């Protein structure tokens, strides 16, 4: 249950847990700056027992604000104990019963396009970090942002952008679904999905997990602003240095080196086989085809196959 979540408690979590943890690798002042950049995350937390789809609810909320000429609070998080009409990409099923973390964050994007492109990476990293922190150390990211434990999906994300009809704000809806204490899946998902409870053999405190996930989302989105500000300040928008978010993704992902099948909708229309050789600074997947040619994909998905 996430009904008692609050902004002050998230702030306390950031200060007491996230900042000290990040300060091991980052100078404290820089870490504070990054957290300040991402601190819009969870500015408002809305809890529902049941929703159809959190994304639809978020859109309706935005429409209502637009009609009333009221600003939408960036970082508003909409959570539900269960979703009755949830879905994945394309026409795929996403099963969201009681026990998981289901929701969406409304985020008003102010990043330049070349930094905004990494937002989907940030949400996958945040989930993988949070899942590992619960003890599932084997959690990994599969490009772009699927989080897997032992080859089964534990977390999936959707990102949708649209422009407000009146305000012209660039709204980004970040939908998230993380299997935590829900342990049973319908037949079609049984072999490809798992939950933290199934893997850890114990229940996880969802409220605590949510603070942890949102704190990590705050950090990883904050990193995007931090890097943007530094590059703009230095007048170097095409830096060859690895973006810290990309570097972190590489640490958490098992995609590099894997033979894969690639497709825009890989389940319905697999396009080709290749081996993942890396990731570009703008999140593109580097693939080497059987004939030695190299391609970069910025959109689509992969499935691991045997070499």
């Amino acid at each position: 249950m996430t009904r008692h979540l609050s902004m002050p408690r998230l702030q306390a979590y950031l200060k007491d847990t996230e900042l000290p943890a990040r300060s091991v690798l980052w100078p404290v002042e820089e870490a504070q700056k990054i957290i300040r950049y991402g601190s819009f995350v969870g500015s408002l937390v809305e809890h529902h027992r049941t929703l159809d789809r959190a994304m639809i609810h978020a859109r309706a909320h935005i429409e209502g604000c637009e009609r009333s000429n009221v600003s939408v609070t960036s970082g508003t998080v909409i959570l539900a104990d269960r979703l009755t009409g949830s879905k994945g990409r394309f026409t795929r099923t996403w099963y969201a019963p009681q026990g998981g973390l289901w929701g969406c964050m409304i985020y008003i994007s102010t990043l330049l396009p070349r930094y905004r492109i990494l937002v989907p990476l940030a949400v996958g990293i945040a989930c993988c970090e949070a899942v590992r922190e619960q003890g599932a150390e084997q959690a990994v990211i599969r490009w772009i942002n699927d989080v897997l434990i032992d080859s089964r999906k534990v977390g999936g994300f959707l990102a949708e952008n649209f422009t407000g009809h009146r305000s012209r704000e660039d709204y980004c809806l970040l939908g998230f679904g993380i299997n935590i204490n829900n342990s049973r899946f319908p037949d079609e998902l049984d072999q490809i999905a798992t939950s933290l409870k199934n893997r850890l053999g114990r229940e996880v405190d969802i409220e605590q997990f949510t603070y942890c996930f949102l704190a990590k989302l705050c950090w990883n989105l904050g990193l995007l602003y931090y890097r943007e500000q530094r590059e703009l300040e230095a007048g170097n928008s095409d830096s060859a240095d690895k973006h810290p978010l990309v570097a972190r993704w590489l640490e958490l992902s098992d995609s590099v080196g894997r033979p894969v099948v690639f497709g825009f909708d890989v389940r319905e229309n697999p396009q080709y086989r290749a081996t993942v050789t890396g990731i570009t600074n703008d999140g593109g997947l580097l693939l080497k085809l059987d004939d030695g040619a190299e391609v970069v994909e910025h959109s689509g998905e992969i499935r691991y196959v045997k070499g």
Partner: protein
Amino acid sequence: MTREIDFDEILARYRSDPYKYIDIVAPHTGTVSYLVEKGNEVEAPGGEWKHIPGTSLFKINRENNPKTVNAPINGIISEIRGECEGRFVEAGEKLLTIRHPLKKKDIIESILKEVLYLFPAPESAKFFFSLDIQSRFDKKGTRGVTIRPGEEVFTMSLMKRDTPVTYTGVEGIIHSIYFKPGVSIQQGEPLVGVCPVDKLGLIQKVITRVKAEWDAM
């Protein structure tokens, strides 16, 4: 679309010069070193997924970071700015021109692109029709779907982030589709060509006439 179409003028133009000229510009600042000469034949990207790069045209080196630029299309190097060899150039500076021979199909497409309203890709990404538009295609078939300004016609997909794209052109029938689902489109490239309903007959006339006249040549 409001102006009258002078078929004779358009056809005469293509008949006298059945080529398309593609200017290749510097993608960013840097020092240029050519890999081709005027008159060289160049190849387009190849392979099943167009993943084999076209002929290497030049290298551009910025801060010890050399980048090879390849031909996006086949043809002959018709112009090369030799004075740029070994020189530092600005981003966007024209470096050479490729003369690409047009086929009948290309010419029909080129003429259609002159007479249809072309709706461009707002960003470099992959595109697909919105669910509503796709279901209208499924029901009514090709050239049976009318779109209006303000309608969400496409979904743009980039890094698993989907953005609805609102159509802002003239009301009309989707006559030509220039993208395939799952294939990346560069920013500014046309996604669809739209024809107002009352001009459909005219468009058909263009196609029929080009086919007939080109075959007679």
